């Protein structure tokens, strides 16, 4: 394995492919030629890229839930319920955690027990075990595009199966589906494996079939400063584009400060476009805003408000789609009814705010510029340590802590940065670790946190971080001392 940010050549790709398709018995049903035929008949209403482009052009924010259960018919029923009762614009298939770890045997146990107990014992849809034809069955029995949402470090077989199955979008990336989801999988491996997934999307594109790719924006979902998640999103976008991906949705997880959230999405769109242009990639770019991804309040009324607040930010930020939480979030995988409640609440806010906007006032503009400046500093350094090669750069950058994701489980993550909220609720760097930033930026963050310290009459310290982690689940935004 010689990791380079270069398009995988056909020989290599098809050699790897031969092996990948043997990882589980359903791999043998994937026939690329036949899959292209099938895909070319998927109507526009069920094509992710087409629907996203339409939404982007008309300035609308689409609504997408997360959902997946162990068995095919139950999964179809679930998706139809979300689509018909909730009015979901885009459909998910959230994949279970065993599949994510390529433990297909355990999936099989889960499927068998789910059949026996007549309830889903898996936390998602075990797509590899179900295989190509069941993916098609799912797609053919719904009215909207379907996307796989997972968290799989090695998603190569999964990707083969879902696309051959007619699903036109795949979430993930070599960084975003490794560092927050794995403990000891190397970045070389996941970057390489995701090049495969991206390349497969590229091959479909070269055959005239539109496939949407979506790096996972929120990472650990817990107080991630916008410049970190934007840097990762743009880098994964560039890596995907190199493999021939043409339709990209870059993501961001709500921080909770309206101003910062709007700024982050605007900075992301703007800066990603700059980089695509700079590196000469022709990409159709859209954005996804994730409602609050950290710990939720248990109380459902409060959860509804967290959902609404995320919808407000998504709408005013002008995200192309919003990923919906549910009133059950703090407790467990939502029932389909709870999922529909989340969708309805979200749509209501989107509909109320659809034609409203907040202009680019100067504080907002300043926040955008600050995020872009921090992000650029990180991305440039990644290129630098990779000696111009972005893939190599990412590996080195994580080693050195130039890229560092707060609270991530991976041992390849530096784990030195600490985020905390400033006195107005925006997420700032309490400790930059080795994240590169110029002195002015560092002073800026320091000043903001000290302001909070003065207000709270306490030192700027790790206590703030802990209090902030618990804050939203306790019904507040900033973890003030009690």
């Amino acid at each position, binding site marked *: 394995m010689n990791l380079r940010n270069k398009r995988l050549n056909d020989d290599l790709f098809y050699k790897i492919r031969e092996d990948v398709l043997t990882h589980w018995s359903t791999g043998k049903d994937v026939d690329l030629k036949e899959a292209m035929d099938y895909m070319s008949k998927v109507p526009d209403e069920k094509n992710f890229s087409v629907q996203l482009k339409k939404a982007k052009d008309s300035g609308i924010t689409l609504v997408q839930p997360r959902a997946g259960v162990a068995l095919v018919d139950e999964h179809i029923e679930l998706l139809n319920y979300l689509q018909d009762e909730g009015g979901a614009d885009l459909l998910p298939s959230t994949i279970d955690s065993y599949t994510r*770890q390529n433990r297909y045997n*355990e999936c099989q146990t889960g499927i068998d*027990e789910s059949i026996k107990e007549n309830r889903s014992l*898996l936390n998602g849809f075990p797509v590899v075990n179900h295989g190509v034809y069941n993916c098609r069955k799912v797609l053919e029995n719904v009215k909207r595009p379907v996307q796989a949402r997972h968290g799989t470090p090695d998603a190569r077989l999964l990707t083969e199966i879902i696309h051959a199955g007619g699903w036109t979008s795949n979430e993930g990336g070599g960084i975003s589906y490794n560092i927050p989801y794995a403990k000891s999988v190397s970045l070389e491996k996941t970057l390489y494996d995701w090049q495969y997934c991206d390349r497969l999307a590229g091959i479909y594109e070269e055959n005239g079939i539109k496939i949407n790719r979506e790096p996972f924006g929120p990472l650990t979902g817990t107080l991630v400063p916008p410049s970190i998640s934007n840097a990762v999103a743009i880098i994964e976008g560039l890596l995907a584009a190199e493999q021939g991906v043409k339709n990209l949705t870059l993501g961001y997880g709500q921080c909770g400060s309206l101003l910062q959230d709007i700024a982050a999405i605007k900075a992301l769109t703007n800066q990603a476009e700059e980089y695509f242009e700079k590196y000469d990639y022709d990409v159709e770019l859209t954005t996804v805003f994730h409602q609050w991804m950290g*710990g939720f309040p248990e109380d459902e009324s409060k959860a509804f408000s967290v959902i609404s607040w995320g919808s407000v930010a998504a709408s005013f930020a002008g995200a192309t789609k919003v990923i919906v939480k549910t009133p059950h979030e703090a407790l467990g995988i939502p029932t389909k009814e*709870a999922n529909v409640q989340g969708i309805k609440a979200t749509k209501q806010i989107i509909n109320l705010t659809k034609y409203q906007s907040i202009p680019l006032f100067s504080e907002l503009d300043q926040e955008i510029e600050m995020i872009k400046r921090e992000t650029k500093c990180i991305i440039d350094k990644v290129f630098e340590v990779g000696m111009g090669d972005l893939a190599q750069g990412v590996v080195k950058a994580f080693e050195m802590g130039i890229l560092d994701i707060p*609270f991530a489980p991976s041992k390849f993550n530096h784990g030195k940065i600490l985020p905390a909220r400033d006195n107005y609720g925006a997420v700032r760097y309490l400790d930059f670790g080795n994240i590169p930033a110029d002195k002015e930026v560092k002073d800026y963050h320091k000043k903001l946190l000290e302001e909070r310290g003065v207000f709270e009459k306490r030192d700027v310290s790790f206590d703030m971080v802990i209090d902030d*982690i618990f804050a939203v689940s306790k019904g507040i935004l900033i973890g003030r001392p009690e």
Partner: protein
Amino acid sequence: MNNTIVLGVIGADCHAVGNKILDHAFSKAGFNVVNIGVLSSQEEFIDAAVETDAKAILVSSLYGHGEIDCKGLKDKCIEAGLENVILYAGGNLVVGKQDFEKVEKRFKDMGFDRVYAPGTSPAESISDLKDDLNFNIGTMAV
């Protein structure tokens, strides 16, 4: 006095935030925390407990497969000579929003000494563990 505990997240579960918080809180409360982190197998829990002569094993499961993942852990503990090691479980132990009393019972039947509902604050389990281990706050380094 030995106050070593093993902390980890079981199964294919990657939820790391609560684990880091528990590590911090139990350490601050004076425990010697051996944190095996996320994505840990039953064997890893047991090996760590045997190696460090731990007094308690605190198993987290957030992602919904807790029931499957914890099955048989107690038996393995007994096999490994850890029959007296205290077993706690916490997090979002099962798939979906379920009646906690039933969940508690199921996990107690599996051999866990205490079972915690979603979002329980660390303070509660720290105080329980001090009771269960007969630790006097005064004797602990803080």
